[in-house]
């Protein structure tokens, strides 16, 4: 027992002193989980000796535990025995219980061997705050924190000074240092409310959403490429912007959840709710040649299951893919039953389904163009006054002279000896079975005494042929000649070719380009009539007996030769001659568009509006989204034996993990049901997991350190009551993240100074008790954004496609992909780190060095490191040099003397004024560089150039480089 008191671990000490009953969750479960559950736990496959220790009844039945009688309990006998054959855990496992652990088990059995449900699976209840009176602080967070500090013999620090609080809270809420305006306003107001007003302002800024989107995008495994070998680009930044927007609007977390997991299944979903489902389309796709789409579709669906449970419940289901969880109550069946819900979407390792996802601005443009179009069309419907009269009088002319006149009297010279007959309508019919190819000379009579301006060739669909499959026609070349009555021929040049339809790469101009290999054709629309029109370059004036001779080359082969067709000419002006199938029937259209001024204008405006709509629609990004398969195409889900997708076991239907009950009968039995259940009061985990994540962002470590694991293998919460209090607050305050943040950052715990001492470090090395303010290195994005902000370079623009700030040459060398990194030269060079293009197989190196992930899988937390490679980035990377250059410019302009200039730079970076001694030291560097560059103007110039400057003071650039590399700069104060 004496040995036990050596244990300074919280809880254990209390146990050792015998003041408190043994707690199963706090004391016993960790021992059983560590040593026993792997073989005697929940996984029935792995279970040895038919003994299950995670279930009280089973353990008592098996004789392992006899409540009240440790010495009669087999469990104790087996862990203390000297017999190498029967000792547990087995001797060869290298694992053995310590005497302390054995003692705890003994006492637990003696006290009745009570079991408890795992702490995190209990619903959270608002803990009593009745001890408030004993505390000074008005803030509940501080009561819980102080309670534990007191027990450990520690006290919290005094509040940090005002400027430190300002910089800390600004970085925490927006990821940026405070702006000049915010600093001024805050410092000018020394009332109690100044800090709270500042917090409100920060929470209301756009930068808030940008900053808080970052950890969420880590969870969403957001990236701009698809991953694996080809790692091709994926346009999904609209989803990133959706997250920013949702956070800025403070969308309640339950809604935030439902829209991302199942927005498409909501009744009448908005485009934004559909866009939100891109959350689960961030899974990777494998475009490598020869890969099996089903294999990677399955991998993506599994990733969705794992990610969902990780993100919302802080549980790991990954291992249940292959076997039941050894520690948490999740069976393999549970896994595939949840999988069944996610196994019903259309996507299958391909880009589809994707939908247009216009930005707000594009939506507005769309709307205004549509409105304009409707207005114009309505105006056209109404028709201006006098229209009817004008139309009637104009139409008359066609009674005498039709728009097109079919030519008669065909004489055909065919290489294949074909002959033609003309019917009453003027249509020419080939009389024989079509040859493979042919070239014709077709002569037709021209109407006399009328100017002829254009030629029209009209083809009719061919009847089914037994010989030729393809109903298409290819006119390789068309030439025209005028034959005068005296038999003279005169070549007629054809211009302005146009057709109602042309096949791709077989456009109608190719029929008159002089190249017999090209031509006009109309697949895949050959089953319809088509027409082509050619103007004569000069109108012809035939006289009686004049003829038109056409050379029609049709040498494609496979019978693509004209069969039933018509040749007409017109006497009207070219712009009246539209390549339409029924020109006479469309006279009204002609009148409106080319003759009658008031409607011409309207039509032009309609046309231009349509063009704008088309252009806009083409520019709208298309985002991959989730879409449920129709009822008839639902997939059957079978268990994958040992996780192998080819080895199918029993069929399962959708359900939530059985340890958490079942979906209510009235709930939708699909993803939407899952999403609603995640945020329902029935779910004990979601709110805890969410507030813990927010806490970890602010304090560096979560109340539950293993943010990714709230299961029995995870760490216990350092402050269980505080965690529950926050969780209940969060849920009861409408799931508002802004409110939650405000609550936390207004606490004394958050606002205290970060100063520490050897004693505090010894007693609370990782600040798990909050005996001092949170102080840790800024995130990859913050390091970058801060440097850009304090140097005045930052481009503040919300959202848009991802950007490519400078990265060293040659970093991108991806297999078989022609993608290239092009350093931005416009203001996209200085966007926030959040917007940097993220290629999964080759992430932006400077960010990676500062622990940012690659977006390959859901990243619950970034493990902070402190490495020499980080120093090289902020010392030498282009962006930090350019920031130093820009900062130096501001310094130079801000003062007369180097000292003033440096003081200005210091406070720009760190917000606080420099102390004299710090200025002395910085001036010293300034002088050292003065000395270094004194005789080396060339080198000085090159250094300026490295910092992106044409001219300036290289000494100040060197000082700025120092300022941007200070520990204090890189750290949240």
């Amino acid at each position: 027992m004496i040995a036990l008191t050596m244990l300074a671990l919280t809880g254990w000490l209390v146990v050792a002193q015998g003041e408190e009953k043994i707690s199963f969750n706090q004391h016993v479960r960790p021992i059983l989980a560590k040593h026993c559950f792997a073989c005697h736990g929940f996984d029935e496959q792995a279970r040895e000796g038919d003994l299950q220790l995670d279930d009280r009844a089973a353990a008592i039945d098996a004789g392992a535990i006899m409540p009240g009688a440790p010495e009669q309990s087999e469990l104790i006998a087996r862990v203390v025995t000297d017999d190498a054959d029967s000792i547990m855990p087995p001797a060869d496992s290298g694992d053995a219980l310590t005497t302390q652990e054995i003692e705890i088990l003994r006492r637990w059995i003696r006290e009745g061997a009570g079991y408890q449900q795992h702490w995190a699976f209990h619903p959270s209840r608002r803990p009593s705050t009745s001890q408030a009176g004993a505390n000074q602080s008005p803030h509940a967070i501080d009561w819980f924190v102080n309670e534990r500090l007191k027990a450990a013999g520690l006290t919290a620090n005094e509040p940090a000074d005002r400027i430190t609080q300002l910089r800390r809270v600004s970085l925490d809420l927006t990821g940026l240092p405070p702006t000049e305006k915010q600093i001024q306003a805050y410092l000018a107001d020394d009332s109690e409310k100044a800090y709270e007003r500042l917090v409100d302002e920060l929470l209301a800024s756009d930068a808030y959403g940008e900053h808080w989107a970052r950890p969420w995008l880590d969870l969403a495994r957001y990236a701009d490429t698809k991953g694996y070998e080809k790692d091709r680009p994926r346009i999904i930044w609209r989803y990133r912007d959706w997250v920013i927007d949702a956070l800025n609007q403070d969308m309640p977390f339950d809604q935030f959840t439902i829209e991302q997991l199942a927005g498409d299944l909501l009744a009448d979903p908005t485009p934004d709710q559909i866009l939100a489902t891109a959350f689960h389309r961030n899974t990777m796709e494998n475009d490598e040649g020869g890969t099996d789409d089903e294999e990677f579709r399955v991998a993506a669906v599994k990733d969705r299951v794992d990610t969902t449970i990780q993100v919302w419940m802080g549980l790991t289901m990954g291992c249940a893919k292959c076997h039941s969880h050894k520690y948490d109550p999740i069976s393999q069946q549970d896994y595939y039953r949840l999988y069944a819900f996610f196994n019903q979407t259309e996507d299958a390792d391909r880009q589809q389904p994707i939908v247009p996802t216009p930005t707000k601005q594009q939506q507005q443009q769309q709307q205004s163009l549509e409105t304009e179009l409707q207005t114009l069309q309505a105006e056209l419907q109404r028709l201006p006054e006098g229209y009817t009269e004008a139309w009637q009088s104009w139409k008359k002319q066609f009674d005498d002279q039709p728009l097109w006149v079919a030519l008669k009297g065909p004489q055909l010279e065919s290489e294949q000896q074909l002959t033609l007959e003309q019917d009453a309508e003027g249509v020419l019919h080939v009389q024989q079975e079509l040859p493979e190819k042919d070239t014709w000379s077709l002569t037709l009579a021209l109407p006399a005494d009328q100017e002829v301006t254009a030629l029209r060739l009209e083809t009719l669909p061919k009847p089914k042929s037994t010989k030729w499959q393809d109903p298409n026609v290819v006119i390789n070349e068309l030439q025209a000649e005028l034959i005068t009555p005296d038999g003279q021929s005169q070549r007629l040049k054809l211009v302005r070719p146009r057709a109602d339809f042309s096949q791709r790469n077989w456009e109608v101009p190719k029929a008159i380009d002089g190249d017999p290999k090209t031509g006009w054709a109309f697949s895949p629309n050959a089953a319809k009539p088509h027409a082509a029109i050619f103007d004569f370059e000069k109108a012809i004036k035939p006289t009686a007996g004049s003829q038109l001779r056409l050379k029609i080359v049709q040498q494609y082969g496979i019978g693509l030769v004209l069969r039933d067709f018509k040749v007409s000419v017109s006497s009207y002006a070219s712009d009246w001659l539209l390549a339409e199938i029924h020109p006479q029937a469309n006279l009204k259209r002609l009148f409106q568009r080319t003759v009658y001024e008031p409607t011409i204008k309207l039509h032009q405006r309609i046309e231009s509006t349509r063009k704008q709509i088309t252009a806009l629609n083409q520019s709208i990004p298309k985002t991959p989204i989730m879409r449920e398969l129709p009822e008839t195409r639902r997939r059957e889900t079978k268990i994958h034996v040992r996780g192998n997708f080819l080895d199918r076991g029993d069929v399962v239907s959708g359900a939530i993990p059985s340890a958490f009950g079942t979906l209510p009968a009235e709930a939708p039995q699909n993803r939407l049901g899952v999403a609603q259940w995640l945020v329902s009061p029935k779910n004990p985990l979601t709110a805890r997991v969410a507030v813990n994540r927010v806490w970890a962002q602010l304090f560096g470590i979560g109340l539950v350190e293993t943010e990714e694991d709230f299961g029995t293998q995870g760490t216990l919460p350092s402050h269980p009551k505080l965690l529950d209090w926050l969780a209940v607050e969060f849920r009861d305050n409408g799931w508002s993240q802004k409110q939650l943040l405000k609550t936390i950052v207004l606490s004394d715990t958050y606002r205290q100074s970060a100063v520490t001492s050897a004693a505090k470090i010894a007693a609370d090395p990782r600040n798990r008790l909050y005996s001092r303010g949170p102080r840790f290195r800024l995130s990859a994005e913050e390091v970058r954004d801060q440097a850009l902000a304090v140097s005045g370079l930052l481009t503040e623009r919300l959202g848009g496609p991802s950007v490519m700030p400078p990265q060293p040459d040659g970093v991108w060398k991806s297999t078989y992909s022609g993608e290239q990194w092009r350093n931005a030269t416009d203001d996209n060079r200085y966007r926030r780190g959040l917007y940097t293009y993220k290629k999964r197989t080759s992430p932006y190196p400077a960010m990676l060095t500062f622990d940012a992930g690659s977006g390959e899988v859901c990243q619950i937390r970034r493990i902070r490191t402190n490495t020499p490679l980080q120093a090289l980035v902020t010392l030498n990377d282009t962006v930090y040099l350019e920031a130093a250059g820009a900062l130096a410019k501001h310094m130079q302009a801000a003062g007369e003397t180097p000292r003033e200039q440096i003081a200005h730079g210091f406070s720009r970076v760190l917000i606080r004024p420099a102390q004299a001694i710090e200025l002395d030291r910085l001036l010293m560097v300034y002088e050292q560089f003065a000395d270094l560059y004194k005789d080396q103007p060339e080198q000085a110039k090159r250094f300026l150039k490295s910092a992106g400057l044409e001219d300036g003071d290289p000494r100040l650039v060197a000082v700025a480089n120092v300022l941007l590399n200070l520990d204090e700069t890189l750290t949240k104060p």
Partner: protein
Amino acid sequence: MNLSQKLQRAQADTRRQFFAQAGLGLGAIALSSLLNQESQAAKPNWQIPAKAKNIIYLHMAGSPSQLELFDHKPTLSRLHNTECPKEYLEGKRFAFIRGVPKMLGSQAQFKQHGESGQWVSNHLPNLSKVIDDLCVIRTVHTEQFNHSPAQLFMHTGNSLLGYPAMGSWVTYGLGSENENLPGFVVLSSGGKTPSAGKSLWGSGFLPTVYQGVQCRTDGGDPILFLSNPDGMSRAGRRKTIDAIADLNRYQHQHIGDPETLTRIAQYELSFRMQMFVPEVMDIGKESKETLELYGAQPGYVSEAESAADPRRLYKGNDPTFANNCLLARRLVENGVRFVQLYDWGWDHHGSSPGESIDETLPIKCQQTERAIAGLITDLKQRGLFDETLIVWGGEFGRTPMMQNNVNKDLKKGFVGRDHHPHAFTMWMAGGGIRGGAYGQTDDIGYYIAENPVSVRDLQATILHQIGIDPHKFSFPYQGLQQRLIGPTEEGRVLKEILA
């Protein structure tokens, strides 16, 4: 005293004054004590006696054909150009083969070499001379038959992205022997990074400090951001680092955060790396004989390294890989724990130019085999061979059938084989591995006949040789004690091939 000296003295005074005012003693902090070495108070339960100190892993990305290099199959040659029997096709998934392909006899000539009498092809004339040092394992098999997942499986133990590389595991367990260099270095050649990209040397769920550091040999900084900007001299950098350190110490004195001290140390280390890394990376310091041994050429930057499609530029005399081999020796000599080489361009499908068994494979061999033989010879001469484990191989093997999706019949420059996961050759040497062949495939090299070796076995053996018990070595993540060799006990140390 000239002006400059006066200035220096004045500065020295200022600095002294700074320390006096700040209440700091010069050099009060022993930097070395703060360095990032994992302090191993107690010997962890997974640590076992090590045979090797370092690992050099030579990965031929794309996967070389075992049937043209090490696995001699006369029967296959007899069946050349006949249709593949159905039993080899039914129920099988191939990346590219469709329908019934023809058998493809070896496109190389084999002879027995060395005292062990191992069969080696004419593409490997230099390697044949040191063949007795190699343990050629002809019976490796894998679970994956596409590049990216197979490479990930080989190096991270998982075919999906997001798991730590073998080099990360090793440096996480054992740390680095040289505090001026990263413990896990990656070198690449062949003009492209391997299919799975940088994820192959990512640290997955281990702290990022254990990720592989890619040292570049194509003319840029050997380590990204290593060079000072143009116009910033080493003397100038010294001054800035001193200033940063002094101000940080002052900060530390007021705040007391130990991370500040670590940061001071890391800046100092970065300064030393700036000097040390280029020195180690400079193979120009090697003797003529050594360069000749490898076929290395200091300063050579291959055109292929910046080409969109480097395969068209493959020529036999490209020394990039040779340079990397020599560098690998210099790195392990300087205490780098794990050196990973990737050479791209071994995916010989025969479907487009520059990727054939008959034309490209001999060129890739010429680019690499002399350097590998040189590396072995060099390590032996320096007494480093026994403590350095060398591993060679691809991510899978190649089919005994000809790939038929582009050309149905043999065509010069377009003879190819598809991916083959069922049996392929890798070899290990040095680091406590015996020489001689291991394992036997069937008559046509399709299946394993005896002594199968899984990727898990290889991983277990590699960890074992470096002094890590592969079964006990783990990291808690996602509710599991994650291990390189995976969650099950199927992987085993190949005791039969240990010296």
